[in-house]
């Protein structure tokens, strides 16, 4: 018995060591870099490593080979693509930080998001490469796709570009949506002004628009974010989370503008009446809102344009439960002064690509990104081979021959957000949705011109005081909407703003505003000299 126990231990150990050893050697060889140590644009085999966040993250997928082959043909040398899939959203930043902590573990191309502080450190430490010369020589697809403004927000005032956007949203991604079938049931017209809109919402709430005899509908729902009430705030020309350019040329925080008070008072009344879905106060996850929408008891909602793609999961879920239901997108609601606008996206982009010091042939690496950004290669790695994996009919409607699972297996989407194209190369949008995007681009412009999108990554006052101010704002505003606080609480908030550090924020932001105007001039000169001629 005792002998066999000892024997067992020894056997287990031998087994364990042999398994682990064999795996180790396997791991090391796959981690080796290609033979690219020879320096400038070589002709030998090239290995390029990319950190990836999007898509199904399928390892060793078809798409990897397809991209490698495409790059091999394009560069006329052997190319292998090393996919480094970042872990889940909540852990990916840790991983990125660790990889960037040492040159030997840096990827050639770093994809990252939201890490302004770290990005600044990387730039200061000199571990990111200036892309300007390579964009000039190899980056035509990139500089032709991104517009002047996109690059401005990634431009370093020293006249260098250390990052390019990985994904910039369409200029207007959201729209007011309304139940067409309910309008028809109740014999109502599409609302255009705020008063008509409120009347329609009331009717949706109280007049049994779905005809089931139950009082189970709400006028408007959404997530626990101010943008859920964009049809109201934007009709009054205010975004409570943005810095707004005032008529006198100064900058003011949107929360402080008197229009905000009017809107809050209006919302408080509607909430009390029961027109606003009370779940707006608790919906913290996107998914909750998608579920509420799919259940089909909501008359109007401010939501994604992409919903109108018939194949979108939200649309499918909604149609499944409400075969006769129909949402339509309507133009932004006009406020008392006749102003109207949709929510504009910033031109900054939300994720970025940098070439690190680990890339020994930065020019070739930019060439690789540029190739991935070209419409043909973008379509190849995002949708697969035309004809084989998808078809486009004469109306321009894209039809995938594969199920979602099959597409995931091929790894389609693995290279998402490596210069994500929102133009015609994005086949999934139907022509109608593309039109709607174009319309929202236009209808979001009025507010785009009124909002100051801050470029600077160095905002000490904002960093220090904004959390407290915004916490107080959120408590106050949501408290007012829910009726727990009287509308006078708003005035208290405005009074406290300055004392909470708001004065310093205002000073800082106004200074940044004038600086940014100057920077924009400088950038334009730089752009005209360094980018425009190379397009």
């Amino acid at each position, binding site marked *: 018995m005792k002998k066999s126990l000892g024997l067992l231990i020894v056997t287990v150990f031998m087994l364990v060591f042999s398994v682990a050893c064999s795996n180790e050697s396997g791991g*090391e060889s796959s981690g080796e870099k290609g033979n690219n140590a020879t320096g400038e644009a070589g002709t030998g085999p090239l290995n390029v490593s990319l950190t990836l966040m999007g898509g199904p993250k399928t390892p060793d997928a078809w798409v990897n080979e397809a991209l490698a082959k495409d790059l091999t043909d394009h560069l006329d040398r052997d190319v292998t693509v090393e996919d480094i899939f970042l872990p*889940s959203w909540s852990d990916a930043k840790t991983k990125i930080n660790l990889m960037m902590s040492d040159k030997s573990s840096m990827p050639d191309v770093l994809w990252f998001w939201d890490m302004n502080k770290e990005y600044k450190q990387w730039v200061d430490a000199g571990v990111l490469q200036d892309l300007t010369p390579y964009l000039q020589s190899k980056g035509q697809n990139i500089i032709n796709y991104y517009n002047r403004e996109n690059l401005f927000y990634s431009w370093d005032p020293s006249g260098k570009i250390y990052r390019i956007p990985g994904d910039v949203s369409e200029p207007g991604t959201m729209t007011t949506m309304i139940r067409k079938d309910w309008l028809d049931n109740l014999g109502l017209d599409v609302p255009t002004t705020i008063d008509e809109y409120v009347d329609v919402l009331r009717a949706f709430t109280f007049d049994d628009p779905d005809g089931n005899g139950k009082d189970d509908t709400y006028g408007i729902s959404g997530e626990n974010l101010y943008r859920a009430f964009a049809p109201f705030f934007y009709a009054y020309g205010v975004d409570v989370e943005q810095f707004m350019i005032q008529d006198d040329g100064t900058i003011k925080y949107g929360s402080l503008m008197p229009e905000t008070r009017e809107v809050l008072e209006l919302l408080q009344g509607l909430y009390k009446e029961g027109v606003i879905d009370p779940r707006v106060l608790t919906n913290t996850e996107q998914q909750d809102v998608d579920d509420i929408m799919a259940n089909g008891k909501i008359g109007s909602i401010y939501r994604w344009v992409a919903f109108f793609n018939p194949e979108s999961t939200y649309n499918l879920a909604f149609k499944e439960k409400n075969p006769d239901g129909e949402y339509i997108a309507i133009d932004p609601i006009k406020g008392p002064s006749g102003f109207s606008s949709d929510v504009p996206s910033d031109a900054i982009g939300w994720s970025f690509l940098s070439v690190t010091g680990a890339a020994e042939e930065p020019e070739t690496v930019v060439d690789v990104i540029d190739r991935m950004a070209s419409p043909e290669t973008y379509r190849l790695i995002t949708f697969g081979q035309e004809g084989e994996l998808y078809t486009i009919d004469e109306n321009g409607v894209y039809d995938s021959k594969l199920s979602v699972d099959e597409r995931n297996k091929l790894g389609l989407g693995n290279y998402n957000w490596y210069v994500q194209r929102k133009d015609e190369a994005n086949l999934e949008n139907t022509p109608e949705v593309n039109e709607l995007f174009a319309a929202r681009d236009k209808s979001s412009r009025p507010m785009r011109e009124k909002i100051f999108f801050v470029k600077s990554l160095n905002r000490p006052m904002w960093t220090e005081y904004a959390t407290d101010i915004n916490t107080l704002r959120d408590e106050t505003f949501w408290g007012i909407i829910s009726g727990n606080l009287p509308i006078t609480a708003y005035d208290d908030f405005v009074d406290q703003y300055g004392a909470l550090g708001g004065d310093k924020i205002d000073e800082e932001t106004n200074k940044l505003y004038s600086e940014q105007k100057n920077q924009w001039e400088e950038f334009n000169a730089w752009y005209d000299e360094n980018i425009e001629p190379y397009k």
Partner: protein
Amino acid sequence: MVGLSKGEKIFNYCNYVFMVLLLILMLYPFWYILMGSLSDSKLAVGGGLFLIPVGFSVDAYTAILQNSAFLSSLGTTLITTIAGTAIGTFFTATTAYALSKSRLRGGVFFAFIVLFTMLFNGGLVPNYLLIKELGMMNSLWALILPNAINAFNVFVMMSFFRGIPNELEEAAKIDGANDLTIFFRIVLPLSKPVLATIGLFIAVFYWNDFFSTILYINDKDMWQLQAYLRNLIENTSMAIRGGSGTAVTAQMNVSPFTIRMASIIIATVPILIVYPFLQKHFAKGAMIGSIKG
């Protein structure tokens, strides 16, 4: 219920009813998860009670199991769990045994060193650099070795070993056994309860570990199971990153809810199965059959 008074019988019945209700209360969350995971994703979003699956569907399981990364991540976790438990338990025992002996020269110093790691550590980046310089990046070793010995486990075992009477070892020594023989043939067989307990701690730790993947693994073929599931869940629930509202969820055919439920089942059931096998060791007394009287 012979010989019970009426009052006692009523009490007993009430007791049973209460206990059954309590049982249902305890079991329902598990049942809910199981039924939720077997529900149709489009119908399940309505929420509510799940006594039976709404619109039976195994799509969530298919989505998780069919993914080629699932098998490799399951393999990684199995290897690291088995190897890690073997290595971890063995070295925890050897460390604890040595430290438990008062004749160990500098024993206090070594015990302090072990204790020190419970209170302080080098931090994330130094650890990362250490593993990298040791050449363990992207290998299973990085998933196994850094977590093999846990100071807390060492101290638990140490106090257990201290409870084994010295006379027992002295007796063995008189019979001609050396230290290794004593350790392997006397101490370890007597320590099955603590070995089972610590072994289970370690196994559960390795099974649940996802952070090592984040730190040390770049190659997705070597991701641990929990890292894979975590990524899958977040991918389905993080509908929006860029603002267009499509990018991520469009990848999946299933709802985050059913995926989450199915993931919980897949992640917990295998390790739950281990418990019954080790149960008898927990229950057994420590010293039965060694020293009596």
